[in-house]
Structure formats: C-alpha cells, structure tokens
C-alpha cells in the first residue's frame, strides 16, 4: 500500500459516490413522500443506462446531450407507473406491499431489457470515457469528474426546487407529515405522483454515468439496488442530506478498504458498516426517530 493509491481511492470514492448519492436521493425522496420502498430503482438506473447507450450507438448522440431526452422519458415513465399501481396501495402493509409491487415491476422491465438488448454486458462509449488528465500530480478520469459536476448540478437543481419554490414547499410538507400537509390544502396525491416522477427521472443521469464507468446488463440492477438501499438506510430513510452524505461516505470507504486490505472484502465492508451503524443508531445517521404509527 502506498499513499498515492490511497489518495486516488479517496478521490475516486468521492467522485463516484456523488453519482450514487444522486440515484439514492431519488429513492429516499420517493420513500419519504410516499412510504414506498422502490426496489425497482436499480432496474430504472439500468434502463436509463440502456437508453443513453441506445441513443449513442444508433444515433451517435453524446450521452450528456442525450440526457435531454432520457430524463423527460424516465420522468413520464415514473408518472405512468405511479398512476397505474400505487393509487391502489393502502393499509398497514403498504410499505411491505410496495416492495413486492416494485419488485414485480422490475422483473417485467428486466425481462424486456433482456429481450431488447440481450444479456451481453455493454458499456457506454464516448471520447472521455477512458481518458484521464493530470492535476497536482494526481490522475483524474474525465468521466468521474464530469459525473461529479453533473451530480452537483442536478442536486443543486433539486435543492432549488425543494427550498426555493412553492411546489418544493409542498413536497417538504408532505415529507414531514402527509396528513398535516393534506389538512393545510396540499394535494398530496399529486405531489406523490410528481415526486415519483422526479425520483425516477434522477436515475437517467445516474444510469448514464454508471453505464459509462461499468459494464452492465439487466441483472446488474440487483447489485445496484442493494447498495442504494444500504445508502438510504444508513443516511436515514427520507433524509435527502443523509442520502447524499452516506452515498459519498460508503463508496469512499469501499474504495479505501479495497486499497488497504483487499478488493475482495470491500463490498462486504459496505454492508457490515450498515449493520454496525444501525445497531447503534437504528434510525440511521440523519433519520427522524420513527414516530409511533397507529
């Protein structure tokens, strides 16, 4: 082990962690507003990756430019899914049922993707995918830096939407307390639908970067969703800041363990940290102490 490898691990961890944070933010937003654990988030990330891939392969559209198409597409897919399935979910088992519904949805999407794109692993290609530049004696891969910048822009946009607009205020009200939000005249149903759309739309940029930095096929989604769930639980479910911090922390930690110990155990450390943190702090790093639910 040398210190330069460690520095690289930290830098790569922070840069890629921000992209995971972006995907996890969508997941935690959906949970916070709707009490839905969207297990399909992983396959939506892969769907976003495949859309960018198809655009760049068939029409030669640059993946970053292609986001102008893939983000709205996934937003409307999210709206359609929400309208079709989640209005019916009610009752005390709602959260557990939502896991099963979204799992079934992800099976359908996985099957469809396998049919359209086959199960062969692919990767999104562009001039910046395998190139790096050197700054202060450290190599920075372009794609990680671009991904970090994009994640930062997206998250700032989301921050602006949530904290500087009237609609954002109604989202935050629904996050805090759905019943109270409905009582002061917020259309919680509509807010939920749009939040689901936003949560899914965030998988488009996340998937694009993921698809450019990893080879993937539809079954990669299982690995992704288990990481995303770990991140949002660690951050505290429904906490946007928590998802951001936990995403960066976890991926950085994984990279560091990979360097100083062995890549074999780095994934294990990811889940082990979650188990340890939760046994000390059951609500996650930034979670609210769960209120008593009648």
């Amino acid at each position: 082990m040398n210190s330069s490898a460690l520095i690289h691990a930290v830098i790569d961890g922070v840069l890629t962690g921000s992209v995971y944070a972006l995907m996890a933010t969508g997941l935690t937003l959906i949970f916070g507003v709707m009490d839905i654990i969207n297990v399909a988030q992983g396959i939506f990330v892969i769907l976003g990756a495949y859309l960018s891939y198809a655009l760049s392969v068939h029409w030669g559209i640059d993946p970053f430019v292609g986001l102008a198409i893939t983000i709205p597409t996934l937003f409307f897919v999210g709206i359609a899914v929400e309208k079709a399935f989640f209005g019916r979910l009610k009752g005390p088992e709602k959260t557990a049922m939502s896991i099963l519904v979204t799992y079934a949805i992800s099976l359908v999407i996985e099957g469809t993707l396998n049919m359209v794109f086959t199960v062969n692993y692919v990767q999104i290609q562009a001039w910046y995918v395998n190139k790096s530049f050197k700054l202060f004696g450290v190599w920075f891969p372009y794609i990680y830096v671009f991904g970090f910048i994009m994640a930062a822009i997206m998250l700032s946009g989301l921050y602006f939407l949530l904290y500087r607009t009237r609609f954002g205020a109604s989202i935050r009200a629904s996050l805090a307390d759905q019943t109270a939000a409905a009582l002061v005249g917020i259309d919680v149903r509509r807010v939920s639908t749009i939040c689901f759309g936003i949560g899914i739309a965030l998988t488009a940029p996340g998937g694009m970067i993921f698809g450019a930095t990893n080879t993937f096929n539809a079954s990669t989604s299982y690995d992704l969703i288990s990481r995303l769930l770990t991140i949002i639980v660690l951050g505290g479910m429904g906490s946007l800041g928590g998802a951001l911090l936990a995403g960066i922390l976890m991926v950085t930690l994984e990279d560091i363990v990979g360097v100083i110990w062995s890549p074999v155990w780095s994934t294990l450390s990811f889940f082990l940290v979650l188990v340890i943190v939760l046994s000390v702090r059951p609500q996650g790093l930034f979670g609210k102490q769960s209120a008593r639910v009648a």
Partner: protein
Amino acid sequence: MLLQKKNLLWVVALVIAFFVPQMITNPAYRQIAVITLIFTACATSWNMFSGYSGYVALGSAAFYGTGAYTMALVANHMHFAGNGDMFWLVPLGGLAAVIVAIPVGLVALRVRRHTFVVITIAIFFVFQLSAINANFTGGTGGLTLPYVPWQIENYHLPFYYVALAILVFSILLSVGVRRSRFGLQLLAIRDDEDRALGLGVKVFPVKLTGFAMSAFTVGMGGALYAMMQGQIYPQFVFDPMFDITIALMAFFGGFGTLLGPIIGGLVLESAQQYLTVTYSNGSLYLILFGVLFLLVILFMPQGIVVFVRDRMAQRQDRLESAAKTASSETPVAQGAHS
C-alpha cells in the same frame, strides 16, 4: 375430532402428497416436486414469524445457506459415506441455522418496519459475500458433498419423503404457534408493538424466539437441498431470489394466514417451474411471472386465501339474506338486508 370436515381435508391432502411420486415418475419432475416442498416448507416457516409478527424479513437465504454449508462441511469432515445416514445431518443444518439466527436477530430485531427489511437484506449480503470469499467454504467453486450412489429412477424418492416430513413439521409448528399464547403475543406485536409492550408482552424475547424458530425449518430445507444436489455454490444457496420468492409465496397465498404460504408455495413454485420449462427463453418467463404477480397483488391484495374466504362469506351473506327476505313479509326486514 379427527374426522371433522376440516381435518379430513388435511388428511386427504397428506394422502395425495404421499402418492405423488407414484404418479410422476420422471426424475426431472420429481426433483421439481422436492424443491416445491422445500420452498413451501420455508414459506410456511417464514410466515410463522414474519406473517404473524409483521416483521418482513428478506434475509432468510442466510439461514438456507447456513443449513446447506453445515450439511456439506460436516459430511465432508466427518467422512460420511454417501447414503441415507446423511439425512441425520438435516436437523443439524436446522440447528446451525438457529444458532446463527440468534445473533442476527439480536442485531436486526432492534429496528422496525422498513429499516428491519433493509437490515435483513444487508445481513444476507454479509453472509453471501463471506461464503464467496472465505477459505473454508471453497469460494465460488463451492463444495462437493459425498456422492450418493442411488439409482437415477428412484434417486429423488427418499428426498421427497424427507421434504414432505419437513413440510408437515413446519405446518404443525405454524398451527401450534398460532394457537398458543406465544402466537398471540406475536400477533399483538404485529398489531401494535408499543401497546403489546405496555400490556406486559416481553416483546424482544418473543420476537427473537419466533425469528430463531423460523430459521430452523429454513436451515433444514437448505441442508436437504445440498444433499440432493451433491454440489453447492455460494451464489445458489445464498440467493437473494430465495428471500423474495418465499415472501412472494406468503403474500400471494395470504400474508399471516396458515393456509396462505402453503397454497402460494405450491402454486407459485410449480407455475415458475412450468414457465421455465415451457419458455426456455428466460426473459419472457420473467415478464410473465412479473405480470402475473402484479395482477394478483392489485386485484387480490390480501392474497388468494383471504380473497376466496371473503367471496365465500359474501355469498353466504347473500344466501342468508335471500332466505330471510323470502321468509318474512315485512318490507322493513327487506330494507335492512338489502
């Protein structure tokens, strides 16, 4: 008492189950039958804890894999001959799963609801990744068990009856728990854990006991599976699909009901195997399975058992009210029942 109509159905079902291997002689189908029984037993046992207590655990594959690895490691290190003696290791696999489940429960059961769901998934991955990376588990190459030199035509027969015995055991356990004071305590936890605590239920020990008990059957299932296959791989005995599948079975049939996971297990597992055989194209099978599952959830959200029971109750009501209306002449009574 044994000849009550309800009990009679169970006896008939058991007799039919007993003769199934005589009806299907193709070894491939017999293997499907054994796996169906193992999964149904696991689903019943999962439901005994998760269904009754409301703690949806998605990490049972950790116990399934523990059972399978116990079978493989003990059989190899104690130099078991490949014969029926290995069946004695099946309960040992269950016991190992219980021993593992206790520390897991101590950590996981401190949290509730969705956090519990996710922490069980995380613990499952810790197990899976350890099995893949540790030395004594043989890594991704897995482990080979002592060879059982039975004739292929009847190879699955002993496994079938052991699996049936495990299923019967898990059903009896589930009935026993449901009718006991302990079962009522689990149900009280599902309805309102804080109130149950206030009323004097020792919530944590009750949850931990239920959690460990349900691991026993799952561990036995894993051990039996390992012995039948003769070779285990970490990604197949520690399979995230296993967790989802047994939860699906319970929800499909009826979450928290006794009959639900049994029906769900038999229907889903055989449907899944049928679809896999018919559409060797795995993608189409995924789509069909997903759509089928969505339809059931959306139209029978409480599962088949509750759906059918409600329909029958409605029909009964209609018949009764029709009978009352016919027998009474007063319009008031008619109005009251319409």
